[in-house]
């Protein structure tokens, strides 16, 4: 698996190289290098490193919006007070991706573009209605994250396109969000995960967002369960129906981390626990 390694000096050069058949992009490399080593992916003639491009690593907090450069390492994102304070589900998810060593180099864009069904950053970003910026020699476009994942390892990126940033609208202060996940041990890929974001107003649920990981070919929004919960009061019957709907939306598989049955059970537990015993004003 010998290949050339080129540290790109500019975004323009990266766009040009990304369009070539003999090149592949590398950011933090924590997934890609393992895939190459295990021959789960053919080695290209050249890896083009974009991890040090300042345009891709900046994290900018604007009014109501956080723009995270696609190549910002997870550790940098976690260090942002705005993430911890306003986007708790994202902070909870990023904190359990790999180890410290991994988070120091792994990037948010890498976690998303790798398009693993269990990518932990995806469910919280989905419930925060994040969008992704994709750019290449052909121009720049924005896409809701919910339209980005097409299948395991497959995304809406066009040939030559690079994810440049992830934009996260900051939820209103009254919104509540949480990320739940189970894995066999602390350092493991998720068996199943669920992010939840909602508001509780006058005892009624509003702006409900649910997104699950590791239970379908892609991270996915649970829209049927969301619609059911919209406008309803939290009680056991409401939650039971939501769980039933959520279980109908996911398509888990059996693998060495758990059976489809167990994954489905976990999603139900996560969903109930996200809402159970929560009151207005809870963070």
């Amino acid at each position, binding site marked *: 698996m010998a290949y050339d390694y080129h540290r790109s000096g500019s975004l323009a050069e990266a766009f040009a190289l990304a369009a070539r058949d003999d090149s592949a992009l590398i950011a933090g490399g924590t997934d890609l290098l393992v895939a190459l080593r295990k021959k789960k992916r053919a080695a290209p003639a050249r890896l083009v490193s974009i991890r040090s491009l300042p345009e891709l690593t900046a994290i900018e907090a604007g009014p109501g919006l956080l723009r995270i450069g696609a190549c910002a390492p997870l550790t940098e994102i976690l260090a942002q007070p705005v993430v911890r304070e306003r986007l708790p589900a994202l902070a909870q998810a990023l904190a359990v991706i790999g180890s410290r060593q991994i988070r120091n180099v792994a990037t948010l864009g890498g976690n998303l573009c790798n398009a693993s069904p269990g990518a932990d950053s995806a469910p919280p970003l989905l419930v925060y209605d994040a969008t992704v910026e994709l750019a290449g020699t052909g121009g720049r476009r924005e896409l809701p994250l919910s339209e980005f994942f097409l299948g395991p390892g497959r995304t809406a990126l066009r040939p030559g396109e690079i994810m440049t940033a992830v934009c996260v609208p900051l939820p209103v202060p009254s919104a509540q969000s949480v990320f739940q996940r189970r894995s066999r041990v602390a350092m493991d890929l998720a068996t199943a995960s669920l992010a939840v974001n909602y508001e509780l107003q006058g005892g009624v649920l509003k702006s409900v967002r649910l997104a699950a990981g590791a239970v379908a070919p892609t991270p996915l929004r649970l829209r049927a369960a969301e619609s059911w919960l919209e406008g309803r009061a939290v009680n056991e019957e409401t939650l039971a129906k939501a769980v039933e709907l959520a279980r109908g939306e996911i398509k888990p598989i059996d693998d*060495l981390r758990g*059976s489809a049955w167990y994954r489905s059970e976990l999603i139900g537990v996560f969903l109930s626990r996200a809402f159970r015993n929560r009151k207005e004003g809870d963070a």
Partner: protein
Amino acid sequence: MNEFRFIGVDTARPDAPDKVSGRAQYIHDITLPGMLWGAIRFSDHAHARIRHIDTSEAEKLPGVEAVITAYNTPEVRIGFLRDNFALKRDKVRQFRDEIAAVAARDPETAREAAALIRVEYEPLPGVFSPEEALVEGAPLVHETDARGRARKDNIVPVRFAHHSGDLEAGKRASRHVVEGEYRVPLIQQSCMGTAGCIASFDARGNLTLVAKTQIPFLAQKDFNRALGALGLEGRNTRVVVPALGGGFGTGLDTHAYEYIAMLLAWRTGRPVKILYNREEEFAFLSPRQSASARIRQGCDENGRLTFREIEVVQDNGAYTSWGATFPSVMLVPATSLYRVQNVSFESKIVYTNNTYCQAMRGYGNPEITWPIESSIDELAELAGIDPFDMRLLNCNQPGETTPMGLKITTCGLKECLERTAASLDWKEKRGRQDAKRRGVGMAGVINVAGGGKIYRSDGSGIILKPDDYGNVNVSYGGVEMGQGLHSALALTVAEALGIRPENVIVNQTDTASCPWDVGTHASRGAFMACNAAVLAARKLKARLLEWAAEIYPQEVEEALARARRHSSFKEPDFDWRDAARRGQFELANGILTVTGAPELPELQVDFGRLLRAVHFRRQGPGTTFAEDAFYEPPTELPDWDKGIGNMSATYAFGAQGVEVEVDEETGEVKILRLVAVHDVGRVLNPQTLKGQIYGALAQGIGYAMYEQVLTDKGRVLNPGFTDYKLPTACEMGFPIDVQLVETNDPEGPFGAKGVGEPGLVPTAPAIANAIFDAIGVRIRDLPITPEKILLALRQRR
């Protein structure tokens, strides 16, 4: 009150400074001049005939120096049943089978070349579980045995059984009887340092093997036999052991990769290194055997055990290594954990097309203590007796002889159980099944602790060789693999001889310079090494003190003469000449003096000075010193057919308990605390001893809750740490209370017992018993995953 100067005192390990600074040299770090790298081409099928092997593409690759197969090398048979071959000729029986190998200038080229070898197969139907393999007419893994005689079935020809007392009478005397089938999975030892070796030949045909082994001398024997196959009869193998990145049983047998390195080195005339990467370690090294056990146990109306009946079936995999002899160790707890008079034990080891198996810490004991200790709780539940009380009632006692003929000398089991219960607040916590779903459970352990005789000698030799500077070099044939053997040796030699531990230097294990040792396994390392060291140190000390009669007065007179030049000097108010005449010499802490002497430097002779004065004697010929000793424990090689024989010089006992909390919605088990109380005979170095227990506990937790090598038709599905999960520091984040019970065993060095394994053994049943106490669900197959618990909860409803 410690009667010793160094024994029993927390002491830093002598190998630690090199390890924390990156200086310790593992097989990974060693490169020899001119060295080539070997790589192996493994099978693409679990069971197939080899039709054709085409190595031409591999040979053409630049940098390749040799490509070998069974067709261009002599046949080298391996394994104690000789049923395995270094390179396979006609048939492959597992995915791990070695078909060809390459030596090349670097590891990448070697692996690339190995991948270029084309093999044509005729696939054969395989058998992938003992159940499949035992069906009448099942495909045969081996059509013939090593002597070429036709085989009729897939049963491995080894027998371990035991029948004592009157089983039927025991059953009739039972008020309560429980029965259950328990399973343990295939797991990987998971040494942090992967396996590897370097083979090189001298010009006379002698082999030097730098090997990650726990059995340097048995390996020497195996390799000398292999040299015969190369036409090098009478040539010798020197086995040198580098720092080991863990052992845990992986090094208990010689491996095909080592013979392949030997063949490549012989073919190329250059040193050849083979180093497994992690994926190869998982897929192509022998893991811990899976097994199932059916157990029946009964008790009378008071809870006294009436009988125990066990049938074990083990999946041996395609070839036979020491994993097949796990039942030899299972016999110990099966017959002797708690008092039970009527015992039946049968085992069946079955060939399959799965990977073949090997030893791991505990060697059969965890596999059988899992059913025994789970079943004790089931029996107690049925009889309406507190399981702790049932254990105490049937507790082993010092001085008893068990049905296997084990002579229990010292036995701290009762105290271990009582202290475990006390630490867990047992009487208060047990049986509450409150809303928090918390529960407590315990399990006991018996383990060989004074060697484990499975070979015609279970002994260990040692050489102590002082130098001119007051250091004593120790040559010992056992292996330091992280467990703290060198620390135990340093303390023992220092204590027994009367010098300081930092002046004890333990040499690298090397068959050329160390006396014979059977191997480092069965918790025997410190017990054997230190017993041998005490014997040798006594001999050495006696000789040194004989010389003291000449040297001491001479050195003291000289020192006094020098001191008298100072006006302030006062003659000592002590008749040291008289004490010396009476031979009242003392060597302690590296200082020779006479009994009762005041602590004056003039009356003290430094150990190094003593040695130099003897070596470079003023008048007459001097001498240097070296003393050896061989310790053979007073044990018996059991009759395996009958399962009788006192295989160890003493036995370790212990008890462990846990408190758990179970999440009934997810099935997750949280360990709130763990108690481990072990009868260790005597503590040599508290730090390393506790390190052994903590480490064994973590392996026990892994075995109980997380680990399993998953296979599909013989192929390993999770060959790496991404998919095979060891406990991390976070899983081990609960409080652990380790307590050591000292029973001062008469056969142990300073009273010590071997303690490497026991901490692993009762961990799983203690957890399963606690889960039952918490939620009333019993899990009978390891690992105990949340999914299994949730499923069991659902099925109960």
